């Protein structure tokens, strides 16, 4: 691979990542450009109540509910897909910290 191309590969990687959440239904919510420093309350604001409940349940409780048929896998998986898609948008940034003085590129 030519040394010139690393940015093209990086762009392909980011497109791949962003495309990968398109299969999530309902679509992953949009997020504001102006994010608070603490991101942890945002999922509760943007997701449905049942999605919040499922994703905030411990794994041991979830496996019990799944094993007994109280919850089905499609519902659980979909809730986590939605929250994970949202998480991806929230915590992955292309911003490089200014302390090292490299150039900044924003992709939002």
């Amino acid at each position, binding site marked *: *691979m030519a040394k010139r191309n690393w940015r093209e590969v*990086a762009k392909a990687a980011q497109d791949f990542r962003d495309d990968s959440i398109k299969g999530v239904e309902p679509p992953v919510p949009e997020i504001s450009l102006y*994010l608070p420093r603490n991101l942890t309350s945002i999922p509760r604001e943007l997701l449905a109540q049942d999605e919040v409940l499922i994703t*905030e349940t411990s794994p041991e409780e979830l496996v019990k509910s799944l*094993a007994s048929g109280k919850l089905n*896998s499609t519902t659980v998986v979909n809730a986590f*897909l939605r929250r*994970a898609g949202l998480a991806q948008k929230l915590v992955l940034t292309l911003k490089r910290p200014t302390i*090292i003085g490299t150039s900044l590129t924003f992709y939002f």
Partner: protein
Amino acid sequence: MLPEEALSRAKYLDDYFNEHKRPVGPFHGLPISVKEHIGMEGKGLNAGFVSWWNRKGADDANVLKILWRAGCVFYARTTEPQTLMHIETSNNLYGVTVNPCNRDLTSGGSSGGEGALLGLRGSCLGVGSDIGGSIRSPSANCGLYGLRPSSYRVPTNGSSGTMLPEEHIVGVIGPLSTSLEGIKLFMKTVLSAKPWLIEPSCVTIPWRDQDSQLPIAHGQKLRIAVLWSDEIVKPHPPIIRALNEVVAKLQNIPDVEILTWEPYKHDEAWEIIATIYFADGAKEEIDAIEASGEPWLPLSKFIIQENPHVKRLSIEEVWYWTSRREQYRRAYAKVWNDTATGTGLNGEPEGMVDVILAPVGPGAAPPLDQSKYWGYTSQWNLLDYPALVFPVSKVDPAIDKTEVGYAPMNEQDAFNHQLCE
């Protein structure tokens, strides 16, 4: 993200349950997130390198095969740092992964993608890897549980990275979770599948019921020794406060004894591990970065180019440093055995300290590109001790004040102290 496959798998599991009226296995229907370099068949396997973007997994990693047979759903793969050897998570493919509690800080690394995802509850159980702190750093930074198991317990075949066949410092795979039970469930499920049958290096020890292992079961106190500082880099005030809070609670339990753990030459441990991390002089890492011309990230420069211990070792030097590692392990075992209170039937020491309670890092989550002290995690990799991280508290600027007039012990300590601001 793997939405189509995940939903298709979920449907299969739901249909199975409806037909057979029982789950496929202990993880039936549960979504489990996976650090990207733990391979999935046909899927990308770049381990954080731009030049590896087109690599694909030939097969599912052994640990994932076990989790799959237990009925789980794979739905998300998480990112890693360039080189995999940062305790943060930035690469030139996807950028920087920040801490969900404070996006000016790192989520930790190298399983920082897992840390951030679990921290935001986009997952409740994830699979990471650790050779210097990579499960424990994101767990601590993001307020989660994480386990670095002993080596040769959880099968590692099918992961990607540099220097894979080397054995002088072994990376492990282990769980991160939002609950302690999630950690136990992972270990129990993986070991119940007898991984030693497909990966003979794994030891043939099942997951042991912990109650029978505790000294209380034998009428003795649980002896917990606290490592307040490794005497090289002093932990920040919030860490000391957290340790004090845990100790205060433990002191209220009748069958628990609290002591202090005196660190034994933790600087020597770093010297050894930093030398054996890159026995080829980091040639594979350097080649992987330079093949694409991607820029060197600050923490890659730190651990490779600026690391005074990195040099290509001869075969004799590899043997020498391996024997230094073993000598150090024996010396540390002696320190441990010297805490014995008695002798067993065969002359073996008995009644030693049961567990060390220690900081996971010299501070709370550092600002981006500032995580330069590995000593509180890599120490236990060198010794190959299992290490569990659990959340205690969050930083409170009103309580956690920087120590004024502190005289740093050395350059690393000075760097860490000024980070406290």
